[in-house]
């Protein structure tokens, strides 16, 4: 993931299919494992872990959306709603049946996949902006349904309290426990996506993205693979919704409104369409940037302005800075943070002997 050789120098199929194309890749993965499994959770304060947990949740959602938008080339503004489908399915399973979290998680994902595939049906006939509007309709319909059908929403408040997930006798409630709980699914999602894209299905997705007529001519069943892309992507979204529900202890539809769908689209565009690392970068960037800006403003603005002005200034400036920085990064590198990272890497590969 981090280490890829420039150019294609493979001479055997085995070398091409290898998960670790360079020996050093193994060590980096091991180093990252130590960092994220031991160093970060054991040294950082709970507060930073809570931020990490928000990042983990968005990483899974962004990966899912990237499968659809980045790899298959189908736009969706309905992912917030697919998350809510997962969240409410799991919440209903747990309150009505009392089922354990692995079942709820799977049920939430599968239900979201089903709904996603249905919302994805228009993609068979329309593309681009037209499809965006069709999925927007899906978002609004799902929002309305959850808001008004009390069988799903569990009452007029449209919120269902969910008990903390348990692992045997151990209740996962603290940020530390949640960190590992969420990280497990992040790893699954990353490995799953990377492998999906190496498979026949993934290559079919990419073929559809690049030119769907050509893909159909070389024998890819467009109907099947487009809906499959919607289903897989929505499965990720559903799982994100369930994890978010478990993280907060409540399913509430107001947490999955249209703004969330837009935020996730922003993540993958900033991070880089059609790349796993880009989804991670984008999710981290969109979640962390407002927090970092606030810290910076808190540190600096007290020097220049009075306390009351600072209080008014921070939120307003944070929003504008956030917008401005997104523009700056996209102007700097239209292909997203992933490309920026690759540029940095290839620069240092030959450093200090740059040409």
């Amino acid at each position, binding site marked *: 993931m981090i280490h890829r050789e420039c150019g294609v120098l493979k001479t055997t199929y085995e070398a091409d299919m290898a998960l670790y194309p360079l020996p050093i890749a193994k060590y980096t993965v091991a180093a990252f494992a130590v960092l994220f499994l031991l160093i970060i959770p054991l040294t950082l304060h709970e507060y930073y872990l809570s931020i990490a947990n*928000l990042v983990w949740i968005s990483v899974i959602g962004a990966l899912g959306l990237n499968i659809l938008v980045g790899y298959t080339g189908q736009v969706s503004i309905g992912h917030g709603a697919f998350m809510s489908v997962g969240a409410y399915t799991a919440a209903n399973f747990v309150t009505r049946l009392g089922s354990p979290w692995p079942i709820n998680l799977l049920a939430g994902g599968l239900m979201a996949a089903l709904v996603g595939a249905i919302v994805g049906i228009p993609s068979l006939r329309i593309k681009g902006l037209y499809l965006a509007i069709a999925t927007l309709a899906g978002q609004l319909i799902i929002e309305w349904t959850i808001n008004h059908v009390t069988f799903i929403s569990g009452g007029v408040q449209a919120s269902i309290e969910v008990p903390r997930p348990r692992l045997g006798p151990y209740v996962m409630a603290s940020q530390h426990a949640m960190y590992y709980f969420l990280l497990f699914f992040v790893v699954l999602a990353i490995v799953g996506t990377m492998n999906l894209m190496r498979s026949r299905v993934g290559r079919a997705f990419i073929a559809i993205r690049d030119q769907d007529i050509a893909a159909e001519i070389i024998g890819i069943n467009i109907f099947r693979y487009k809906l499959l892309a919607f289903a897989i992507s929505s499965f990720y979204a559903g799982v994100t919704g369930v994890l978010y529900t478990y993280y907060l*202890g409540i399913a509430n539809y107001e947490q999955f409104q249209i703004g969330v769908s837009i935020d996730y689209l922003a993540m993958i565009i900033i991070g880089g369409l059609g790349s796993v690392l880009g989804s991670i970068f984008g999710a981290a960037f969109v979640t962390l940037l407002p927090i970092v800006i606030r*810290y910076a403003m808190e*540190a600096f603005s007290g020097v220049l302005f009075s306390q009351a002005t600072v209080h008014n200034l921070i939120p307003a400036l944070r929003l504008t800075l956030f917008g401005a920085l997104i523009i700056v990064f996209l102007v700097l590198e239209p292909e997203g943070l992933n490309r920026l990272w690759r*540029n940095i890497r290839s620069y240092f590969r030959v450093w200090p002997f740059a040409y």
Partner: protein
Amino acid sequence: MRTYLTVFIAALVAMAGLVGSVVLASANHEIVIGLQCDRTGATQIVGTVLCPGFHDYIALVNSKGGVEGHKIKALEIDHEYKVPPGVEAYERHKKEGAVTMAIYGTPHIYALAAKLTEDRIPGTSPGFGSAAAADGTRYPYIFPIAATYWSQGAAAVDFAKKQLGGSLKGKKIAFIFYDNPAGREPIEVIEDLATKEGFQLKTFAVPPPGVEMGAQVLDIAQRYRADYVIAHLFGGAPGVSIKEFKRVGYPLRKVVSFVWGAAEANIEAGGGFGVAEGYYAMQFAGVGKDYPVLNEIREMYKKEGKAAPKEMDSTVFYNRGVLIAALHVEAIRNALKAKPDGKITGEDTKKGFEKISNFTLGGLVPPLKVTPTDHEGGGLVQIWQVKDGKFVKVTDWYAAYQDVVAKHIKEAAKK
């Protein structure tokens, strides 16, 4: 290429260093209140005025030497009325050692309910949030500390009854509401009261974002011909409703609004006090500038040689900010009285909240009585009317149909 990479890496390093330094600087021995605000986002009309009110009261308390000798620090974080930043704000407040938290927003109080209880930190949801949280045994760490939507609904029906001559038998009441969970919450109580009082009830949903309600208002005025209207709208919607009622010629003296359609800003959005003449609005904090505590705040600014902030002119939201701050400070005061060494925890402030009784701040705060079982404090409201360019008090603090509200709280606790 080389330059921009250098700049980029330098910026990253600077950011990282900054984060580290701020973290070190924030160690202190003040008593911290976590304050969530919404000065940006969908409901900024509230936050831009309410939060300065909160800070001004804290500054006033500190200028008088603090609470039992301890200074108070209100740490504000803006969350744009979005849930993930609200969760982050909660964790930040917890890290900074907040012993009580002023949560803002219905989805936020839902999202944080489990955490507040697990971490044993009291959180307040004044005038919004889950009405069921009034039950202190079911939600031990959530404090509505102001009339919930259920109490507001009961008070509105009672007010309509008095306005219509003491009986609602056979009358037609319209309930126009913002179509989200918070908007729908009071319906079950009002429906119950419809059977009890024998009036006809029809509900009219206004879909978010609440700027389009011409059809609903026309329906209320001309087809349904409501005898009285109860309005429960948020953000920009109350202003639109005033305009629409005016347009179809429905008398505004037959409209009573819940607490989030009751501020100067809402009236001005509806065309000003001249247009809204007659409109009734429900309040959970006193309205106007004539309270001793507000005079003290003005004095405080005068002593510093500054003019009083312009937010003070928007008295409804500003006074609510003062009320919320005052109740938090009062809870801290009660906690410190029990533990004078100043080492109070969330559990102590929880007990502090539960001791609040007859703390009125010269009439700005209703005479609440918060107990371990009743975290709402009685559900008291006042009704004010738009008259001659200002709000005029119509009723004193009152609560109505408390038996019906109590029944719903009990049923909710069973779930």
